[in-house]
């Protein structure tokens, strides 16, 4: 892992996938409650955490993201009943492959945030952004096909 010399000024790039029904609404509530978290976090809305293909996460790393977080409804509360369980299993598989891909496991996180947990959303994002800032800039995942 590269240690960034200017880690004080290092601004990580963080992609957050949020499910439409719980976490995205939780992010909205954090906004309505004016609970701040770093602007480094950019949210992509998906219908359900089970829509997040692990490929999306790898794509983000390939394009230069320093951290990716996926948020869904709490287990048992999925709008689509079982979506977050699928997501959880898929992410477990992804985690088992990250070492192999050369991505620090701590750069990927899965969190459950409900629509009522604005405070939790902000807390989770602050914590994750802090962690990623500590870890510094990520090694860009190269697309092997582009290399000569």
């Amino acid at each position, binding site marked *: 892992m590269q240690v960034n010399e200017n880690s004080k000024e290092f601004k990580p790039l963080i992609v957050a996938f949020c499910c439409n029904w719980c976490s995205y609404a939780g992010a909205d509530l954090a906004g309505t409650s004016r*609970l701040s978290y770093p*602007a480094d976090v950019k949210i992509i809305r998906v*219908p359900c955490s089970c829509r997040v293909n692990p490929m999306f996460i790898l794509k983000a790393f390939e394009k230069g993201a320093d951290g990716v977080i996926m948020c869904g409804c709490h287990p048992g509360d999925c709008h689509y009943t079982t979506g977050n369980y699928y997501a959880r299993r898929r992410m477990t598989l992804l985690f088992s492959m990250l070492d192999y891909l050369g991505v620090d496991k701590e750069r990927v996180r899965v969190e459950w945030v409900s629509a009522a947990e604005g405070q939790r959303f902000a807390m989770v994002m602050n914590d994750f952004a802090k962690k990623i800032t500590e870890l510094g800039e990520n090694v860009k995942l190269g697309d092997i096909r582009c290399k000569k």
Partner: protein
Amino acid sequence: MQRIGVFVCWCGSNIAATVDVDRVVEAVKTDPNVVHAENYQYMCSEAGQKLIRDAITEHQLTGIVVCSCSPRMHEQTFRKTAEAAGLNQYMVEIANIREQCSWIHKDKDEGTEKAIILARAAIAKVCLNAPLQPGQSKVVKRALIIGGGIAGIQSAIDIADAGYKVDIVERTPTIGGKMAQLDKTFPTLDCASCIVTPKMVECAQHPNITIYAYSEVEEVKGFVGNFNVKIRKKARYVDETKCTGCAVCTEKCPSRKGRNEFNCGLDTRGAVYIPFAQAIPNVATIDATNCLHFKTGKCGICAKNCSANAIDFEQKDEIFEEQYGAIVVATGYQISDVTKFDEYQYTKHPDVVTSLELERLMNAAGPSKGVLVKPSDGKHPHDIVFIQCVGSRDISGRGKCYCSKICCMYTAKHAMLIREKYPDVNVHVFYIDVRTPGKNFDEFYRRAVEQYNVDYIKGMVGKVYENEKGGLTVQAVDLISNERVMLDTDMVVLAAAIEPSDGVKHIASMLTASIDTNNFLTEAHPKLRPVESPTAGVFLSGVCQGPKDIPETVSQAGAAAVKVVGLLAKDYLVTNPCTAHTDETMCNGCSSCERVCPYGAISYIDKEVMDKGVREVRRIAQVNGALCQGCGACTVACPSGAMDLKGFSNKQIMAEVDAICK
């Protein structure tokens, strides 16, 4: 090349104070797809919307991005705006620069930069949007009710009164359910039969209601508005159209060993029987396991005595199909297994009974003709102990983790009725907590204590055992005085936990309706959609959804009926176009998608496809747009990448990722 318009909202100072809206406009203009960009104070106002409409026409926009508040707030508004200007409403994307930007950041530079990135992501996405048309599906104007207890009866009557056809499928020979077995109802103490049997008759006579008793749902296919249901009408060996319910056969039947289910097995019945005098339909049923004709080939006394010639030993189960627009689950409950709690000697001593058995013992139509007697010797009891929470609130694995809700009240009712009718009988109630929320409920319970001198003792009973006198001894502790209680008594009544009927799991899986760990059906939303299942077109009525008493059941049954009527009143249903779809050339028919779909929306067909000049028949996944709710589970499960989700396609999300990571 798309022609995109970007509209940046100030939201007064809500956005404009932290985000430099002019800079955002300038920045997005550099995107080659963007042909127009502007900002305005309030985009959602009529003036703002007019701005958008005019720009769509003027610049022939093919898609728009509104940078404003959360899409949860105004996405619908701007979709309608686009539609009004002739642009497909799904060509609209929202960049959330208020809740997720201006409101949480203080630094204006930082806010502006983030807003630009969010806008770019939305532009990247909208460029890949495709016009979508909400679909339509036809609604069959007929409802199915599964279960003919008070919940099913009430839902049926309410739907039928609104003018729609209703079928009730009931697995036992008669409708009426548990309520028909009860003696009196709390807190008014009116006779259960007197209020439920007229409702049963109303069902039977209603021109819009058809009752299929002694029948079971065999298979459910289809979806909201158009369910296709197979129903098995079990052989009664009695021709329903001929039987007059005269009951002569039931009296003449020489086999008397059948367990009388209606009396909870406290007595026996003939092999041909009518469960009770007011049964609907009032026809006899032959139970083949006890019938001598079926066992030995001889007998046939019932047939000889039937003047209507209704006995038909050759009758077979009959399966038929019917279409329904909506299905109401009203499968009710059963008493949970108390044999697991044999420290109370239920399996060992006949004078230890459940509350439902006591109900039959006190009912005028019951095995003892309404005279309260001990089942062991038919003698009058002088002392009765009630034990509450048997199997409820139990996380040890033996019982149910939940509170069964109705036991506190019916126990108070039993105690009071006994004290009223037999003042010489001492009544003790062992309780953990007395839970009586409800109109006139606590007053009712207090009346049992204050007026009827029912002895309430706080503490669960530890053991019940037979004493030298042949009676029962109850070993407990009075937790208030912290003293041992050893009570000699004549009868022990267990307020056993209630649980969903045992067939409900099967029914839920046929309907793809979800159930919780206790087998109660799950509601679509615990507060706001309490009578709907998450599966569209399936509604919940009564205890199948959670423990409840009769008034609550009836209100919920009515609520479910209203939801059904609301659905059946529509000729067509509008379907969400953001659904999954298959790329036929890539699908290999592996069934991975079908397995993860919670709605049963995916099926397979053999279809001829043209792939790279080769024409061949393949097994291909097909998504039913009316059933698909657009969660996207299948898109990730698909190993070949054939499955995608409209409105949130792989390409769209990847484009967003690209735009953010640029």
